[in-house]
């Protein structure tokens, strides 16, 4: 027998499209912590080990990621986001450091947005970069350690941008930005950035990104992901960067494959090839590395536990195989991380 409860007419919450209308202040964020063990047991004076990609770098220590607090509000057509991070991942490891002492907080996003029409909006302020696949927040990455492409690309771009949605399948962003990863541009804001976004079919999104300026350099990047089935996801990131005045650069590609066995457990693999270009200015030869990462995501409500194995294989002897610092081409590590999202 059908049972209903009677609610007064007019109790209707929202039956219109799911775009958030006027909302109160939204507070969200995350907390993360990790343990990392480099099998060589090598550790430098700063406590870091072989694999030098961003975050998860402290050897054999229960280490801190960051506390990330995000404030957001939308009233009518105007909105803002204020996104702060505290802790090693959010402070000096995210490059910028407000206090200059490696212990200050870090701004991840600080911007205002105005939605002129359903298709067109403008945003101004300090924003997470539009370039690349991985991001600073651990809630946005499947793997806990990051790729070389992420580490060597921009983290944030301050600037002003306009975005236009031609349809639900095609969009374009163009903007004027400061140099990479700075609050203030002492060269005059002059970096140009653009993004073409495509959604060919349901579940497949692709972004072609371009950013250029001096002295930041020029990067072109492809980021794409396809939720092929409910359980299987495939992602790809490829990029090429050139520093100005023949001062080197990088190029590389990373493939991401993830399979969700249930809502509580997923397994993901990342395979990356990364190449440092020759730096003609300082006469530094280029080299390359291949990195293979296998990560699990165990989800319990807002908590995600990430066990991870990683092996990096360099073209040259770029790592140390023991505490005595004997050189080797390979490095491997285990990470166990916990990320709480609220």
């Amino acid at each position: 027998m059908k049972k209903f409860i009677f609610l007064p007419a007019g109790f209707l919450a929202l039956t219109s499209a799911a775009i958030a209308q006027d909302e109160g202040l939204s507070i969200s964020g995350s907390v993360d912590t990790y343990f990392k063990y480099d099998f060589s047991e090598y550790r430098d004076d700063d406590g870091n080990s072989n694999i030098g990609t961003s975050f998860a770098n402290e050897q054999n220590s229960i280490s801190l990621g960051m506390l990330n607090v995000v404030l957001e509000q939308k009233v009518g057509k105007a909105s803002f986001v204020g996104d702060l991070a505290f802790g090693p991942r959010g402070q000096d490891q995210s490059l910028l450091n407000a206090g200059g002492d490696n212990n200050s907080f870090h701004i991840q996003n600080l911007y205002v947005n105005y939605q002129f029409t359903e298709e067109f909006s403008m945003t101004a302020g300090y924003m997470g970069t539009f370039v690349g696949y991985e991001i600073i927040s651990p809630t946005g990455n499947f793997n806990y350690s990051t790729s070389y492409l992420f580490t060597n690309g921009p983290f944030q771009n301050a600037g002003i941008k306009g975005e236009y949605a031609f349809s639900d399948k095609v969009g374009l962003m163009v903007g004027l930005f400061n140099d990479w990863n700075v609050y203030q541009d002492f060269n005059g804001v002059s970096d140009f950035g653009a993004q073409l976004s495509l959604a060919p079919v349901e579940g497949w999104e692709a972004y072609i990104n371009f950013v250029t300026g001096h002295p930041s350099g020029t990067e072109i990047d492809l980021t794409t992901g396809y939720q092929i089935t409910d359980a299987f996801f495939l992602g790809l990131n490829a990029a090429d960067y050139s520093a100005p005045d023949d001062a080197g650069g990088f190029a590389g590609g990373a493939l991401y494959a993830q399979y969700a066995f249930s809502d509580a457990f997923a397994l993901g693999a990342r395979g990356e090839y990364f190449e440092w270009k020759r730096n003609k200015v300082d006469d530094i030869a280029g080299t390359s590395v291949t990195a293979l990462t296998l990560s699990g995501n165990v989800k319990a409500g807002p908590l995600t536990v990430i066990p991870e194995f990683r092996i990096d294989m360099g073209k040259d002897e770029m790592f140390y195989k023991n505490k005595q610092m004997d050189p080797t081409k390979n490095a491997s590590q285990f990470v166990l991380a916990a990320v709480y999202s609220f």
Partner: protein
Amino acid sequence: MKIFGALCVILFTLVKSLQAQEEAFFATDEAGKYVLAEVVDSVRIPKEEMTGNATLFMQEHMQGVQASAGDGVPQVTATGSFPVYKKASLGKHQDGVINYRLIVEVKDNRYRYVIRDFVFVPYERNRYGQFEAQKGKDVPLETEVSKLNRKQWEAHRRSAFEFAVSLGEDLKVCMLKKCGTSSPKKSKERISLGESW
């Protein structure tokens, strides 16, 4: 003593009422899909007018409104969505949206509405700190989840049921009269505050 007894009766009635409310939930169809349906009869307005009122209601609040007549029974369908939230101790933010479909079928002096096809689309925070839909990760509300994630999932199911009941009640009001911004508005009443009163 009498007052104490009366208070006990009131308290007992309230508890039983709340328990009854907690038990109310979606019915399921032959395929095990959640459905909220009701037949409303003894409606003393023409079939065409009911169909028009249903169409107007859906056009005001939903998308993809379609009219058809299967087996000679006029039918209006539309899809809609509503947000669901994840409550935190300091505030709440959107956890996703639930999409649904509303079907209204009309016969002489009665109609039936069916709300069904509930699908949860999760949201995730992007690189700009904003929550956006995770494309291609739709989850039908009937899906069973692991024990680790059941609490939030049950909360979303409850939100969907309460929304559907409320939607049905609003629909019933609007089936009897034209609702919405496109319907004729009453002119504002004017009164005189002059001497003669």
